[in-house]
């Protein structure tokens, strides 16, 4: 059981939760996630949330209230406990050069850590964030980006010129990522997928994703896939 340090509403239906990392847990790589639960055996499933940020012994998650599990998360307060399994899954690749990070909705969550980690080597990282109703945390994203572009209520994919970048990494609603894939035509796009999960570690096969290379598990083979692998089929 980990201790919650804060859990604040940052936008309509969006919360930022900070907790103490479980003991003997390695550093999260950008794009990785935890399976979290703050209840007993019901609801049965833990909820996968990608890591927003990690500092020392704390880890934070930016999440949207979409159902029963995240609703319970939103009621948690400083001092409450939460059970975390992770960090799990693969990560965005450590590319160099000019990189665009494109996020929409709750998919903006893993891009904060991604920008931080990518900028540790020689890169320029531009962040594009799409919000449906109101923007939030933009000051925080600005601090980890070379430039930040925000779109509210429209299509964030309209704002980006992929030819300016060597690498594009994205997380968000599937139609957004698919549109970006098409706009990037052949570019090295990486997409972090979302899926309902049960075990979170690759054993139960419920988070299946069809790829060019056959069935893949979003939790273990992903959540980050090459765009062509998942959208090019």
């Amino acid at each position, binding site marked *: 059981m980990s201790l919650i340090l804060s859990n604040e509403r940052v936008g309509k239906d969006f919360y930022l939760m900070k907790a103490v990392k479980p003991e003997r847990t390695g550093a999260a790589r950008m794009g990785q996630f935890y399976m979290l*639960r703050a209840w007993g*055996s*019901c*609801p*049965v*499933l*833990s909820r996968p949330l990608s890591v927003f940020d990690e500092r020392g012994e704390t880890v934070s998650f930016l999440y949207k209230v979409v159902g*029963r599990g995240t609703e319970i998360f939103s009621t948690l307060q400083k001092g409450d406990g939460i*059970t975390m*399994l992770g960090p799990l899954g693969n990560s965005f690749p450590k590319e160099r050069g000019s990189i665009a990070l494109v996020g929409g909705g709750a998919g903006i969550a893993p891009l904060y850590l991604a920008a931080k980690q990518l900028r540790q080597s020689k890169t320029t990282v531009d962040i594009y964030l799409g919000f449906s109703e109101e923007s939030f945390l933009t000051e925080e994203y600005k601090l980890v980006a070379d430039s930040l572009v925000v779109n509210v209520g429209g299509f964030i994919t309209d704002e980006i010129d992929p030819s300016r970048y060597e690498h594009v990494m994205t997380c968000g609603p599937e139609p957004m990522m698919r549109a970006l894939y098409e706009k990037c035509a052949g570019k090295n796009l990486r997409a972090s997928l979302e899926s*309902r*999960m*049960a*075990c979170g*570690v*690759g*054993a*139960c*096969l*419920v*988070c*299946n994703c*069809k790829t060019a290379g*056959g*069935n893949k598990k979003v939790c*273990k083979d992903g959540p980050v896939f090459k765009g062509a692998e998942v959208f090019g089929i």
Partner: protein
Amino acid sequence: MSGVLQTEFAGVTFKNPVVLASGTCGFGREYNEIFDIERLGGISTKGLTLNPRQGNEGVRIWETDCGVMNSVGLENPGVRKFIEDELGWLNGLDVVNIVNLSGHSIEDYIEGAELLNGVKLDIVELNISCPNVRAGGMNFGVKTEVAREVVRKVRAACKHKLMVKLSPNAEDVTALARACEEEGADGISLVNTFLAMAIDIKKRSPVFENVYAGLSGPAIKPIALRMVHQAAKAVQIPVMGIGGIVSWQDAVEFIMAGAAAVQIGTGNFIDPAISLSVIDGMQGYLDSQKIGSIEEIKGCV
């Protein structure tokens, strides 16, 4: 760890009666990264079919009140690939190796069983909750006489210990248990998932591509317990209890109902190391009650 949890099942010794249920734990590799799976009594593999299967399209898991519905569709590498890639690893573990065998025709079941005859394993768990492609997709495990034929033919073909996994959707689970015993099964395990349904009211369509899916988890535990009790009273062969076990108390209930061992499935999703809490909890319970062997409470109700 003392031997109070040791249990015999069809002549196979389990160091404790806790087994990971088929379909929730792969072949054990992933959980072994989280805890030492050699602490378990046994592991039942992902359901295998003669040929590899890609599994079902669309949504594969759906949460319900205190349960989950799944429709994975037996995605698996096939018996041959399993023998090549996974069996050696399983054989190297100090846990009872239970290999779960599924099929969509009697011929497939028999050929799968024959392939397994040549390898080392402890128990074949025969999953009869599969649609029979030759009978319009009717589940083999529903009608006693249809199930009886599968068990008879696989029994004749299978050289290993054979445990039949019963479907709770059977027309008469007690009669089905008896039929398995009459046809020479060494044991039975029950229950598999309950056929269930969810509807997406926005789309006005079923959540699952296959329309129906299998319900498991704490929601079904009392029904599973009743079925295990009935089946255990009806047969002499050992029974492995399955259905919504998420605590050591649940496991003790199944053993008191007549199960010689239990399987944990959906519980693994609540806590990947839940089986260890169940083992430790049962050990503590037996010690505190000064019960010398788990077998003393088996079927006491």
